[in-house]
């Protein structure tokens, strides 16, 4: 479903991606852990088609239409209502917002309020709705748990689990080992643009993965 081949990309003298290759099959969730500056965001941007890699290629079945992105920024227009935002973004994908999307995320009662009037937690939920509005088969997440309270974090985890169960692929990038491990079927550690570890999670818990990570990165 998602394929990366010998990706190499530099920003000036800094090598953000140094020969990265992997694939993600339907139903799999790949969690990529790494310190800041390891190239994780660059990797996601290359997968999403936002950056053309200087070498190698990245391929996602279905192209940009199949990709849903959840990052630090909500990518919502504060001046417009929740409904208007969803309608706009879905129109770019030539899709209609699914009828139950708002209800599933508990946004029904806020649907006609402008986004800038919503609390941070609600805005995160709208951002998730926005990413799912065109029913993507691949989800790319860049530090999605940052700033989420516990309820919102659990809701997101449930949602990702459901997404994977439906046979979709996910790539999740984070520097927080605890939050990412539970959802992952595969785990990778990234440092200075390279994968220093890439293997199925194989039943390892967050502590085990955390320790493997510290050993690999240190």
């Amino acid at each position: 479903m998602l394929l990366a081949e010998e990706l190499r990309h530099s920003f000036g003298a800094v090598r953000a991606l140094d020969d990265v290759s992997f694939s993600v099959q339907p139903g799999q969730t790949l969690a990529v852990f790494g310190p800041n500056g390891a190239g994780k965001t660059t990797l996601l941007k290359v997968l999403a088609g936002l950056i053309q890699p200087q070498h190698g290629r990245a391929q996602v079945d279905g192209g940009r239409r199949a990709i849903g992105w959840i990052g630090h920024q909500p990518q919502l227009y504060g001046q417009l209502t929740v409904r208007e935002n969803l309608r706009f973004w879905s129109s770019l994908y030539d899709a209609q917002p699914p009828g139950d999307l708002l209800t599933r995320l508990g946004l029904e009662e806020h649907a006609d309020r402008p986004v800038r009037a919503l609390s941070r937690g609600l805005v995160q939920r709208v951002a998730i709705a926005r990413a799912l509005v065109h029913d993507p088969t691949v989800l790319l997440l860049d530090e999605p748990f940052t700033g989420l309270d516990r309820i919102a974090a659990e809701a997101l985890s449930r949602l990702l689990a459901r997404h994977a169960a439906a046979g979709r692929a996910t790539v999740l990038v984070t520097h927080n080992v605890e939050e990412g491990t539970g959802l992952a079927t595969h785990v990778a550690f990234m440092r200075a643009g390279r994968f220093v570890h890439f293997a199925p999670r194989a039943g390892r818990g967050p502590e085990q993965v955390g320790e493997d990570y510290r050993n690999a990165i240190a």
Partner: protein
Amino acid sequence: MRSPNLLRHAWAVASKDLLVEFRSRTAILSVAVFVVLVLVVFNFGRDPTAVSNLDLAPSILWVTFTFAAILALNRAFQLELENHALEGLLLAPIDRSSIYLGKLIANLVFVATIELIGVPLLALFFNVLVLPYLAPLIAVIVLATVGFVAVGTLFSAMTVRTRFAELLLPVLLLPFMIPPLSWAVLATGRLLAGRPLSEIAGWLNMLAVYDIVFVTLAVMLFPATVNE
């Protein structure tokens, strides 16, 4: 087929921009106030025995339209930047040109609204006959406006991410505005003075060529301003 999608997505972007603008209304109101202010001040400032209405009218008209354009241009991509939405637009399976065309359409609608207010007000306050020349006047206004708004939309995509965005845009735009503006002012002047259409045909042609060249150039170059 690419074309229907291109326009459809462009219209989606444009209508979103217009919806946001319509909600807040601050920009359009401040420009409208500026138009009235300019008309009033110039009227008081001139000496009726020395300067005729017809001498001043074209310049005043185009000063107000240019100001409206610069204001619209400054805000266009600012909207995307402040909402961090540009990345979302780039992630969507749309042609990059749709983003440019959408912004262009929204900017043109904004400036056109000001022009719709400005021309009747000018006719009223300055006692200038406009109706007999309405069709060619509209042609001049449309052609010139498309010209510098097209270039301005392209440049604003770049300046919005620089340090002195609002200052840099007019500086970059100035040498690009002067040809279409000078032709527009001259043509407007001749028109309002009742000169025959044949006199302004040359300027209309040059404006049309300018538009074709720079809209095409802008559509081709826009992806370079957003792609990494």
